[in-house]
């Protein structure tokens, strides 16, 4: 018996070792602390990164003397998401480093290269990125700073990810000193889509409303008369431009984004349950991605003064989210509450075009129940039908969403937000999150960007 117990120990150790090598090792090899990755660079010519339609986003060209240059044909367009590998590694260049430096040609050929000292050709990484959508989002954001994330909720594919200001990765070496110097404004190298943390503004009302719905079975009977502001405990919250919304039900309160109504709702909520809900929605949690996303924070405590609760309920407070996070939650709402693990690498192929490894859609988990998602969807439809995003009404597709205008300083204009998704039976749904820095309202600045993306997406299949 003792012998068998020991044998069992050893067998499980060996089994684990094989399992590690097959499935776990990639995470370790790919870690940016692993300086051993560089050893592969001596043996392999870094593979290409291509868009879902095969357009080359990054490639290595080798001149007659064997000097290698990493080229990015689309220049600024994919700067943040594809990243660079010339001064450290970021974006897909970093997360897919392992695949780019693996040559999965026939092993005989590799062994032969090993022996002759010839470099093997690294695998091509095929991404989920859609060139046309990326271009549309990029152009729509125009000269503003901000970020756009476009996803396919049903699969978790990231279709586009734009961050501005941007840079040309081809010229990185030349511009490096300027880009990283203290006086270069607004941290160009930061991917605002995943790492930018913004106050959510009124987009957060979706969550306040969901919590209200959980705590009040009779939410359909909700009624509030807005006189342009709401005062509680000597603290006053104003509606945008002090607009008086009159008497509204819950759906109308969301559609018109009435601050007074939501401030009042906030004061009635059970703070602990509210925190729990937000944590289920991935606040204060590491987001699923290897692209290096910042954690969103929601820091309301049971003892906090009502003014903080009211501010938080309308998305002002201390809450911070990334556009990427909002895109995930929006995708989950669109996909019956279930978040599909977001991914940007679809598959890898060797230089002969044979598929080496495919990444299939995987469920990350339910962020909310199906009925919660239905409820939000229904109410988000009101926003685009007659509310703050009515520009999206009456299209060939049905749109759902929520706008936001996040005030963060008395002197500057608000950050404009839009989060939402669109549905038309003949194509997979898409979800977007848009943030435009320091411009004004979501209706005015973010909704048109979302519309251009939806239009372009559905026009591609008229």
């Amino acid at each position, binding site marked *: 018996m*003792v012998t068998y117990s*020991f044998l069992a120990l*050893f067998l499980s150790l060996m089994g684990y*070792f094989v399992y590690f090598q097959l499935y776990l*090792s990639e995470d370790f*090899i790919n870690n940016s602390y692993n*300086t051993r990755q560089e050893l592969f660079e001596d043996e392999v010519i870094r593979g290409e990164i291509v868009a879902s339609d095969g357009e080359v986003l990054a490639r290595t060209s080798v001149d007659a003397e064997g000097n290698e240059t990493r080229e990015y044909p689309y220049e600024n367009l994919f700067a943040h998401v594809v990243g660079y590998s010339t001064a450290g590694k970021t974006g897909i260049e970093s997360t897919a480093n392992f695949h780019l430096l693996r040559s999965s040609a026939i092993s005989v050929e590799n062994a032969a290269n090993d022996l002759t000292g010839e470099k093997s050709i690294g695998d091509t990484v095929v991404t989920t990125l859609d060139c046309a959508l990326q271009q549309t989002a990029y152009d729509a954001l125009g000269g503003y700073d901000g970020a756009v994330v476009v996803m396919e909720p049903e699969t978790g594919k990231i279709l586009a990810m734009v961050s501005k200001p941007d840079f040309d990765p081809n010229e990185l070496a030349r511009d490096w000193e300027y880009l990283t110097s203290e006086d270069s404004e607004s941290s160009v190298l930061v991917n605002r889509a995943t790492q930018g943390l913004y106050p959510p503004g009124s987009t957060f009302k979706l969550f306040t409303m969901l919590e209200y719905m959980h705590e009040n079975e009779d939410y359909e009977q909700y009624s509030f008369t807005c006189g342009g502001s709401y005062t509680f405990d000597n603290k006053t919250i104003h509606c945008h431009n002090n607009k008086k919304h009159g008497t509204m039900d819950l759906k109308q309160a969301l559609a018109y984004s009435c601050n007074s109504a939501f401030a009042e709702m906030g004061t009635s909520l059970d703070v602990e349950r509210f925190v729990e809900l937000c944590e289920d929605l991935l606040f204060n949690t590491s987001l699923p991605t290897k692209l290096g996303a910042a954690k969103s924070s929601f820091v309301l405590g049971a003892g906090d003064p009502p003014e903080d609760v009211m501010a938080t309920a309308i998305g002002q407070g201390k809450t911070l989210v990334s556009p990427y996070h909002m895109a995930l939650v929006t995708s989950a709402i669109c996909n019956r509450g279930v978040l599909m693990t977001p991914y940007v690498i679809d598959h890898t192929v060797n230089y002969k075009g044979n598929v080496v490894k495919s990444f299939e859609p995987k469920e990350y988990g339910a962020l909310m129940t199906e009925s919660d998602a239905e409820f939000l969807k229904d109410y988000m439809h009101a926003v685009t039908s007659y509310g703050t995003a009515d520009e999206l009404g009456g299209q060939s597709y049905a749109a759902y969403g929520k706008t936001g205008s996040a005030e963060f300083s008395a002197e500057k204009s608000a950050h404009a937000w839009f989060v939402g998704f669109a549905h038309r039976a003949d194509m997979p749904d898409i979800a977007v999150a848009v943030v435009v820095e320091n411009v004004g309202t979501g209706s005015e600045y973010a909704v048109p960007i979302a519309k251009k993306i939806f239009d372009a997406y559905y026009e591609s299949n008229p």
Partner: protein
Amino acid sequence: MAKLIVEVSKYVMMILLALYTFDAFRVLRPKLPEEVKNGIWKRQIVLIYFVHLDGFLVIYAATDDIRMVAFYFAQVALNTLILICYYLIYRNASKSIGNNMCMLLSVGFVMLTRLSFEKAVRQYLIAVAAVVIAAFIPVIIRKTSGLRRLSWLYAAVGIAALLAVLIFGRTSYGAKISIAVAGIAVQPSEFVKILFVFFVAGMLYENTDFTRVCVTTAAAAAHVLILVASRDLGGALIFYVTYLVMLYVATRKLFYFAGGVLSGSIAAVIAYNLFAHVRVRVLAWQDPLSVIENEGYQICQSLFAIGTGGWFGMGLYEGLPNKIPVVEQDFIFSAIAEELGSIFALCLLMVCVCCFLLFFNIAMQMRDQFYKLVALGLGTVYGFQVFLTVGGVTKFIPSTGVTLPFVSYGGSSLVATMMIFAVIQGLYLLRQDEGNKNGEKKRETGKRKTGFDAEIQDLA
């Protein structure tokens, strides 16, 4: 050209070791005719010399250092000495164990030489001394009958040595494990392991009544607690598990074993809550990447090495094993996996498992309860140590910082392991004596039960 040798050799060494490992297990099969066994052992010897030769071919090609050639021949001489010892002098010793020992030493020397020539030379000198000392052990075991009467002497010396470390020992990597004797750092716990096994065997071989078990347990607990106080958790765990296994086999009472496991688990939980260094180890095990800057650095480097090496390895001198802190000692397995590949490393692990099986095999076969317990105890010490070190560096279990016997750098570990193997060889000689006596009787009544499986069944 050097590059070519490195690349070809990593495959060649892998294939040679795989063949060797296959043979090592094949020869364990019961009822294999003697001629076949002899053939296998001869082939194994050839494989040992070739793995070693190929390793040094790479080392010489990569370093272009003539000292390597001299060093190679010195090692060949040592291997040959060991093989002569077990093939010509102790003819009845286990040839499998002798071969495995040479293979493990050879791989260890190749890797150590690649990591640090100076350390490898030191290791070599100690190995020569150890082989000479160990050469006398089998005959001492065979001829000395009083070993079983010295139990309390073993315990007294053992506890005194461990206490000396606790009080005067040097702290390295948070644990006190070594003490300077005449200017040389010695790790007494490596030797106390052997004394401990003899102590427990001496206490329990003829009498396992309750008082005796209690007294023995108290003395065993003293060993373990001193080690815990010295923060040598790996050592403490080895003593603890060894005692439980020996106690169980001596008494056949599952009650003791279960009680031991239970109290050990409780102790582990208490230790976890009480000692920060225990929590650190556990944290570094659960999610090493999250604490990569500090506590997780070593294990992460180890996993980077193993992962990046892949199945076939980077080739000797093509990896970065020196990035792993204390790579020559506790993390040599990772260095081997990185440069010679995971398949090679797995084969090496299987050779260790094979040694362990041979230890337990002799334990099954010994009729003398004292020696049965000794073999069992030493087998557990060896097997569990292999499990701790390989499990630790691969993140299967929290890292406890123990060496891989025969392969890792470390004089005390090397000498102690050599002694353990020599004691086992002594038992093989004794078994042969027992077998000869019994064989005469049994030949009249019928077939004697032979073979590995039959013996395994006995114990199971």
